[in-house]
């Protein structure tokens, strides 16, 4: 086992050379590997000087959680254990983070919902922990299949939400997520989402920097709230601070605290732009009149549809949202200039991304938003389904 005392000014406790996130993400030479999302998460965590992780089994995130455990056994992660259930795990994560640790955990579907009360607690107590959400369907009926309905429950928790499309993005985002979440003027939790199975279990080629470098450690004494370690004034400090100190001021303080959490999420924009190379990525024909607004694996499928439609002479473009919180409204409006129809292909029945898009565009855009196509419960989203949706809209008499 490692000890924190093994850390020096230039090396972390496992002997990796400490580097900045800019060096790790943009400068360090990379070599090609072939691995799954779960395996690449291990590689990301290995390079992040992570103090603590708490785990609990649920398909499809279990393997990722096992692999973080292996990192602990190998001396890369300081604290690791299996919690009793996801509510317990997310509370244990909160404890770890409040005590000054860089913490990561993973969950999926029903686990996310079981843990729900903790997420607004995380943002309310301003911890910069990271949750890797490997989205799967939620009960009932029972399903373990990919479906991202659970993300809709996370939208108003006060946590940042990023969405990775593939194995490579999961690697890069996980590293950047710690750094952005830990910025003293941000300092809220971050949820990095991938579609379960499609990313967690799919082997892809991925470019990785060497594993002898790792991020500088988290600095808890730069946090906007003192860590709970009896090492930082004030000595009298209750986290959360407003518990019934006075019922007469608590209304106002509670309200302003909640606003501040949301403002902190907004303040993450410039950092996220830098590390993610923009909050939205646009591919396809620049002046197309048809656009797909997507995130995650749906973006991959939309790109395939874009290529096929091009062969049919229909120009389209794909607007991939990389962050959901903060929501990239400006980027979206800019990308939709001149677009007549926007489709929102999604892996859930409710169309939460469609609703997000409509909210952002209301009164600001003339684009006709065509929700769908939507699949759920483990159905795949073939390019043909997306193409059919487009053709029926632009060519209603002839159909697809």
């Amino acid at each position, binding site marked *: 086992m490692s000890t924190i005392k093994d850390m020096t000014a230039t090396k972390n406790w496992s002997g990796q050379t400490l580097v900045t996130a800019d060096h790790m993400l943009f400068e360090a030479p990379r070599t090609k590997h072939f691995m799954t999302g779960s395996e690449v998460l291990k590689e990301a965590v290995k390079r992040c000087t992570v*103090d603590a992780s708490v785990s609990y089994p649920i398909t499809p995130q279990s393997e990722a959680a096992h692999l973080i455990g292996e990192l602990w056994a190998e001396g890369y992660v300081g604290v690791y254990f299996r919690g009793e259930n996801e509510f317990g795990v997310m509370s244990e994560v909160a404890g770890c983070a409040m005590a000054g640790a860089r913490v990561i955990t993973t969950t999926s579907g029903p686990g996310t919902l079981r843990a729900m009360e903790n997420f607004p607690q995380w943002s309310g107590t301003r911890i910069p922990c990271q949750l890797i959400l490997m989205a799967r369907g939620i009960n009932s009926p029972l399903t373990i299949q990919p479906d991202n309905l659970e993300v809709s429950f996370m939208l108003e928790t006060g946590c940042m939400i990023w969405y990775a499309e593939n194995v490579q993005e999961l690697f890069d985002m996980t590293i950047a997520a710690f750094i952005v979440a830990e910025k003293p003027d941000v300092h809220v939790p971050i949820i990095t989402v991938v579609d379960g199975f499609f990313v967690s279990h799919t082997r892809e080629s991925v470019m990785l920097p060497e594993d002898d470098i790792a991020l500088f450690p988290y600095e808890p004494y730069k946090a906007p709230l003192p860590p709970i370690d009896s090492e930082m004034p004030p000595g009298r400090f209750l986290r*959360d601070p407003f518990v*019934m100190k006075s019922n007469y001021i608590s209304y106002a303080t509670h309200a302003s605290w909640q606003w501040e959490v949301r403002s902190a999420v907004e303040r993450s924009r410039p950092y996220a732009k830098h590390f993610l190379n923009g909050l939205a990525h646009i591919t396809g024909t620049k002046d197309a009149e048809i656009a797909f607004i997507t995130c995650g694996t749906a973006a991959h499928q939309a790109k395939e549809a874009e290529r096929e439609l091009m062969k049919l002479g229909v120009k389209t473009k794909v607007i991939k949202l990389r962050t959901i919180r903060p929501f990239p409204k400006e980027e979206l409006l800019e990308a939709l200039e001149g677009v007549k129809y926007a489709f929102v292909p999604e892996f859930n029945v409710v169309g939460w991304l469609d609703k997000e898009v409509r909210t952002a565009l209301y009164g600001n855009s003339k684009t006709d938003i065509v929700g769908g196509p939507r699949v759920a419960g483990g159905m795949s989203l073939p390019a043909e389904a997306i193409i059919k949706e487009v053709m029926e809209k632009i060519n209603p008499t002839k159909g697809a």
Partner: protein
Amino acid sequence: MGIDIYKINPEFRDIMPREIIELEENATWSFKMDKPRGIKQLPQTKELLEEHSLCAGCPEAAALRYVLAALPKPEDTIIVNSTGCTSLMFPHIALHTVHSLFGNQNAVASGIKRVLNWRFPDTVKDVVVLAGDGATVDIGLDYTLQSFFRQENITTICFDNEVYANTGGQESGMTPKGQVFKMAPLGKKFEKVKMWELAKTSGCHYSINMTASAPKAVAKAVREAILVAREIGPTYLNIYTPCILEIGLSANEGLGEMKDQDKDRFASYKYVSPEAEAFLKQCKKEGRI
């Protein structure tokens, strides 16, 4: 170290409230003491509880004063709380404390303790959970017991008032059978949970059921429980702090109620594991308790 955070910046000394200056000058921090802290020093020294916003005569307030007076190393002690009457007192405690959710206190404390061990391998940092019976035994039972199973090095103190007091007097798992409370309009149908026995079978090395009628006894239990948790494994204290409001007593009748229950539902129960017993003997020899 921990005590430095109570030192006042000389530039601000003249505008500091008296109670903050007193904390620095006249509280019984462990490094100042040549013998274990305890309730004996209460009258002459600055308490770690500034005031409280509980009902007049609430035995919980008295019990908290005993607990705080007996912490072996308050300057390096974190207390984790839950929702309920106890959370009314937490803003007034001069330590680093946490209120997180209702029922997750032992899970939060587990995370804090493990990370403090990781971050400060050479410093003893005690983590104490202090919550009511609803938080400890009903909504948080899973997390309480699981922290015992995992052998977390934390002390769990339950202020057992046998009722959900802060929400207006509803039956809890710790309410005695037959008692009429809200949500049990015909009287409680099942027995009071013997949490101190559950604690023992779940892996606690030290488990006590008692009332807060005798301050010295509470202080002794707190000291021993925290030292055992530090060195050996989880410990549990179940302390009767009656809700005088909900059982119809006056402000001056709490002590009498506790004394009555010393002979009844809270007749002394004490379990100490053989390991803990040997350790406590050693502590006694060294003058630590």
